């Protein structure tokens, strides 16, 4: 090969690199190991982590433990999906393209909007991109954030907006745990209001009221969803007046994986599609008139528009999108609803048990889906540690996020929680077992 390239030695291929810039030593990286050795090392590291398959699990807060049907991993593991890239060449990427088109269609159905993109990095960046889109659409400079937005999403929003001179106004939590949106908080400089549904605290918000007050000032309503399964029971945000619906679809068949890769989504109305960030797949025909799919409206994107693009996003969460598309196909119209009903029923059962406990309380009165706040008689850190020692991961300590609540935790009850495990968790939280 070197004879053909006209180089005497392999090193000569690197002649364009000035000698002074070349590394004169070997990298300080361990020597190569066999597959078996690496596997054993990684298995040992994995064994040092608690995880949602090891026992009763009530921790959600944006990353949810749901059952993963076997067909999801079997299908997405097909190398034709896993080892392909962005479908730039549609004639040999129709599998990926059609799946994305199906995803876009299902997200439109779930959100009640007309156009959805081919995924964002995660719910947090999807929310930030939705806010940026609202700033462009309204040419205003202020973003109002309702109290129930996931605290990490708020932090990411602050990071994304930091260099653009836009301001963020955060509102306080109402006494009943809902995220009130008072009219006086919104003015003619407000680009959008961001409301999470259900809120970080689990409360199902009155989106109709939020839409009315937002519309009155000419701002856009952005609804963020972290528990996408809730969309199976709750009226589509688009039908209640949301202009942009975004969030996290990890619940649809994507492993928790320590918080990533997850699956951000973003949907809008057709009239706003030119300001939508990210990739879009559209239907078209081939030279013989047969239906096919292509990446489209790419003049919004960085590889065409460069510094005038709607976003800098390029690589997205393609394979996670495929997991969710397979998952939604498997569960379908009836299964997804039944699953959501089961989550609701189990959460309501847990709430009833908590209500009847002398040492626990439910500080908020509003309706919830599968997640809610539990008031405790002693610091949550201590309670959670005790539950962990008994093999139960009982929720999230809210002290770092909402200290005003006093000792409290956020508890998530999905289909994975059996009645027995719920009983056990409640007993452990009340501290009456040991």
């Amino acid at each position, binding site marked *: 090969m070197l004879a053909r*390239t*006209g*180089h005497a030695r392999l090193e000569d291929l690197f002649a364009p*690199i000035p000698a002074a810039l070349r*590394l004169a030593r*070997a990298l300080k990286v361990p020597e*190569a190991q066999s597959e078996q050795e*690496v596997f054993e090392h*990684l298995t040992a*590291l*994995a064994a*040092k*982590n608690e*995880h949602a398959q090891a026992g009763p699990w009530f921790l959600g807060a944006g990353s949810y433990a749901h059952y993963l049907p076997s067909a999801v991993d*079997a299908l997405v593991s097909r190398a*034709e999906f896993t080892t*392909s890239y962005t479908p730039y060449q549609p*004639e*040999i*990427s129709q*599998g990926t393209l*059609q799946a994305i*088109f*199906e995803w876009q*269609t*299902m997200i*439109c*159905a779930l959100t009640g909007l*007309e156009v959805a993109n081919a*995924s964002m*990095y995660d719910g947090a960046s999807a929310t930030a991109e939705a806010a940026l889109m609202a700033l462009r659409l309204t040419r205003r400079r202020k973003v109002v954030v309702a109290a129930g937005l996931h605290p990490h999403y708020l932090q*990411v929003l602050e990071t994304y907006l930091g260099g653009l*001179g836009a301001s963020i106004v955060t509102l306080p939590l109402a006494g009943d745990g809902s995220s009130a949106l008072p009219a006086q908080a919104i003015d003619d400089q407000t680009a959008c209001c961001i409301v999470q549904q259900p809120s970080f605290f689990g409360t199902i918000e*009155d989106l*109709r009221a939020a839409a009315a007050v937002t519309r009155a000032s000419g701002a856009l309503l952005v609804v963020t969803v972290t528990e996408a399964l809730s969309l199976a029971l*709750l*009226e589509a945000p688009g039908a209640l007046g949301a202009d942009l619906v975004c969030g996290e679809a990890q619940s649809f068949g994507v492993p*928790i994986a*320590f918080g*990533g890769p997850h699956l951000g989504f973003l949907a809008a109305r057709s009239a706003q599609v030119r300001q939508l960030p990210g990739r879009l797949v559209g239907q078209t025909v*081939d030279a013989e008139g047969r*239906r096919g799919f292509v990446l489209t409206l790419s003049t919004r994107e960085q590889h065409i528009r460069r510094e*005038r*693009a709607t976003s*800098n996003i*390029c*690589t997205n969460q*393609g394979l996670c999108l495929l997991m969710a598309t397979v998952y939604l*196909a*498997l*569960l*379908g119209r*009836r*299964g997804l609803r*039944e699953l959501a*009903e*089961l989550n*609701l*029923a*189990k959460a309501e059962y847990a709430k009833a048990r908590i209500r009847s406990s002398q040492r626990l309380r439910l500080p908020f009165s509003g309706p919830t889906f599968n997640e809610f706040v539990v008031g405790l008689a002693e610091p949550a850190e201590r309670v959670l540690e005790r539950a962990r020692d008994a093999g139960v991961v009982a929720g999230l300590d809210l002290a770092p996020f909402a200290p005003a609540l006093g000792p409290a935790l956020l508890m998530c009850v999905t289909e994975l929680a059996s009645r027995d495990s719920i009983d056990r968790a409640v007993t452990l939280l009340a501290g009456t077992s040991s």
Partner: protein
Amino acid sequence: MSANATSGFGYEEPLLFERSRSGRRGAEIPAPDVPPIDAAKLLGALARADLVGLPEVSEVDVVRHFTRLSTWNAAVDLGLYPLGSCTMKYNPKLNERVARLPGFAAAHPFSPAERVQGLLALCHSLEQLLAEISGMDRVTLQPAAGAQGELAGIMMIRAYHTARGEKRTRVLVPDSAHGTNPASAALNGYEVVSVASGADGILHPAAVAAAMNDQVAALMITNPNTLGLFERHIAEICEIVHARGGLVYGDGANLNALLGIARPGDMGIDVMHLNLHKTFSTPHGGGGPGAGPVAVKEILAPHLPVPVVVRRADGAFAWQSDLPGSIGRLHGQHGNVGMLVRAYTYILSLGAAGLRRCSEMAVLNANYLLARLADHFHVPYPGTVMHECVLSDRNLAETGVTTLDVAKRLIDHGYHPPTIYFPLIVPGALMIEPTESESLEGLDRFADALLEIAAEAKSDPDRVRSAPHRTRLRRLDETLAARKPVLRWQPDDSSR
């Protein structure tokens, strides 16, 4: 024709929604062990009546549907996938296996640090490995892809200038750069100033010096650049930028050329992202997920995104969030950790010598292809290339055959086409990156196919211009898709 692929069955497959039949389902939900709840009653006006729009299909319907769709894709596991600057190398199966271990795949980001020491240890080790490979001091693993890494890097640069009481407004970007570079700078509120490459395809110190002033926050540079050429004036260029108070951002998309051979940190780069889905073998997944860790010099460490993983005096790992100069949080949690697990596995498997060998073979393969093709395709910037080479369609001008036609005809030969019409500074560019994964015979078959197409462009140009001929669908009408956007399926869709 030297086709290396013919298809078995070319299945037709409708959309899921067209397969849907009332009452079918692909998953059973467990029977409730708690009392049922009337959702409509509980939720009142906020309840949804029905999930109209989701399909009703059986499990075998779903399995056949997606299996059939998969057969319409090209993939690295099927053959050479020479997308330039995308580094479509082989993705080892071990990576996939370990990423699925429950201790990684079912671990939760809100578990207390002391309960997930294995993951924190892995992140800490990977940061150190990437710092060593790139020649930098510190690393954040949070960015979910290269473009988010660019965003993080430019934010850190802004924070650096702000901390020094400076407000700079411009970012310099060479005309050969990826589109994400100017887009990332603009997303940070910077004015983007394009700097022209020289006649030899690389950036020259004089061009940078002319554009450099105390309004410039940073220069963004890709090295090797998108022509596959090493920016050999890089050290001098960095000195020019530094002398006027600016910083240099390195786009690590093309790092696959340099592993163990040279390090961006030793060239004067202050901050760079690494695409784990390119250089470090995590799968591209039909468009993602990727991972775009950012490596920085010590001067930028105060501005890293939070939280950062630290090793305490007692040897345990912990998250640190109180970093006053930080740009803040960039990801909802800790980044695309599943991809980090795969990349870590890859680095341990290859080791120091294997990483270097990987770059040597990637560069040898690119130069070999260039040598085989140079007499038949126009080479806009001749010379030794690094991991990729760029050709153009100029020699085919008389035939009427364009780069797009060559790309589509390659499909008939069983190859995914190279990146086309990029970089923008080469009209009709074909950007070919074979990676280290290909054998000599595999490279020869691919070169033979391109040469056959070049000959066919002269003997039967219409055949080339109407390619592909052997795929399930012929060339697709992208203009129609953009002119009359159909972005979801609807039951009353007249085109059914």
